[in-house]
Each structure stands twice: as structure tokens, then as C-alpha cells.
């Protein structure tokens, strides 16, 4: 029962959406998920999940930066961890440019102490969490496309 255009009564269960995605949609969703944490879920219409993913990934990443300084986002210091950090997309691009600039200004050796390792761990895990979100975006879109599992309402 639809009461008005675009309005569903509150007592009715939310319907699961069955949307067909094109290849361009898949690519767009995956790129958005990489560029902005939660962006892919937002694109698929899963807005609450998108907000939760965004908050979790961003908070973890920025705690890492606060503990270990922005200079830890640099492949010159730890290439493999930078590879993990890179999955946070925009965060890593901005942080890396800033880190390179700061390395030139400060010109001191980055000390590998507890702060460094905890910072690298937090930022790296944030990137890996976003990788999980990227995979989830693509898998959900794929399942919805094939009609196996429709997208949830929220």
C-alpha cells in the first residue's frame, strides 16, 4: 500500500532491492569504495553501512597518524605497509604528499619506536579493512545482479 508518491507506510516491511548493475557500475562502485571508505556501499544504496564503514576506517587511520605522525605514510620507510595503507584511497594520497613534503622540511631520521610501529599498524589495518569493504561492494553487486542475494534494505 503506497500512501503517497515515494512513501511506504511504516508498518510495511522494507523491501529488498533487486537492481541490475552494469560493468561500469561495478567499476564505479569499486573505485568509489577505494577512494572514499564506505563510498561503494553508499553507491549501492546501503547508506547506514556506508557511514559505519567510513567512521571505522577513518577513525582507525587517523588514530594511526596521530600516534605515529604523518611521515609513516611513505613507501620509503615501509613499502609493504604503505601497500596496505594505499587501500584507504584519498587518505593515503593526501597523507603521502604531505609526508614527502614534511620529510624535506624536517630532514630528520624517522625513529622506529613503539609510536612508529603502532601508527603503521593502525593505518595499515585501516587500509586492509577498506579492502574488505571494496570486496564486499563488488560481491554484493555481483550477487544482486545474478539474483542470488538481493541487496538488503539498509
Amino acid at each position, binding site marked *: 500500500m503506497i500512501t503517497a508518491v515515494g512513501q511506504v507506510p511504516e508498518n510495511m516491511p522494507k523491501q529488498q532491492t533487486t537492481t541490475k548493475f552494469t560493468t561500469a557500475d561495478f567499476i564505479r562502485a569499486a573505485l568509489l569504495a577505494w577512494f572514499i571508505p564506505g563510498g561503494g556501499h553508499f553507491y549501492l544504496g546501503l547508506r547506514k553501512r556506508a557511514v559505519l564503514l567510513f567512521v*571505522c*576506517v577513518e577513525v582507525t587511520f587517523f588514530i594511526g597518524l596521530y600516534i605515529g*605522525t604523518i611521515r609513516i605514510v611513505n613507501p620509503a620507510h615501509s613499502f609493504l605497509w604503505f601497500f596496505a595503507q594505499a587501500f584507504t584511497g584519498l587518505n593515503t594520497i593526501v597523507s603521502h604528499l604531505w609526508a614527502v613534503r614534511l620529510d624535506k622540511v624536517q630532514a630528520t631520521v624517522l625513529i622506529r619506536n613503539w609510536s612508529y610501529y603502532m601508527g603503521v599498524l593502525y593505518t595499515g589495518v585501516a587500509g586492509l579493512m577498506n579492502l574488505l*569493504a571494496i570486496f564486499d561492494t563488488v560481491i554484493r553487486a555481483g550477487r544482486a545482479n545474478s539474483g542470488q542475494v538481493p541487496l538488503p534494505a539498509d
Partner: protein
Amino acid sequence: MPAVLGSFFHQPLPVADYWLWLVFPICLALSLVYKTTRAARFRDIFPAALLLFATMIGGFILLTIAIWLITFL
């Protein structure tokens, strides 16, 4: 303003004395993100994440006890 925000990330935080406590926020974030990708309904995420968080911390505690027993007994 950017300079103030920038200085926020220029000096490392001395965490040598309490680094172990940092396991809690990262486990919480990890369990929330994992359950966000796995739960069928949004309202199921928080209880499931809490359970996963408790399991992770419990697992760490048990592992610590096991390593301590192996090392010192």
C-alpha cells in the same frame, strides 16, 4: 587552520608505556567492519560485532595465559 591541523600529526605520541591498550580500539573497529560486510540486516551488526570483539579479546587473554604457562612453568 591547516597549520594547526598539520601540527596535530607532526609529533609522535609516546605510547611505549601503554601500547597494549591500543589493542582495544583496533579490535573494535575490525569487528565492526567485518560484521558490516557479513550481517544480513543492519541491526544485527552491533550485537554480532560486540560478540566478535569479546571473542578476540578473550582469545588474546587465553593466548597470553598459554604463552606465560609455556614460558614460566
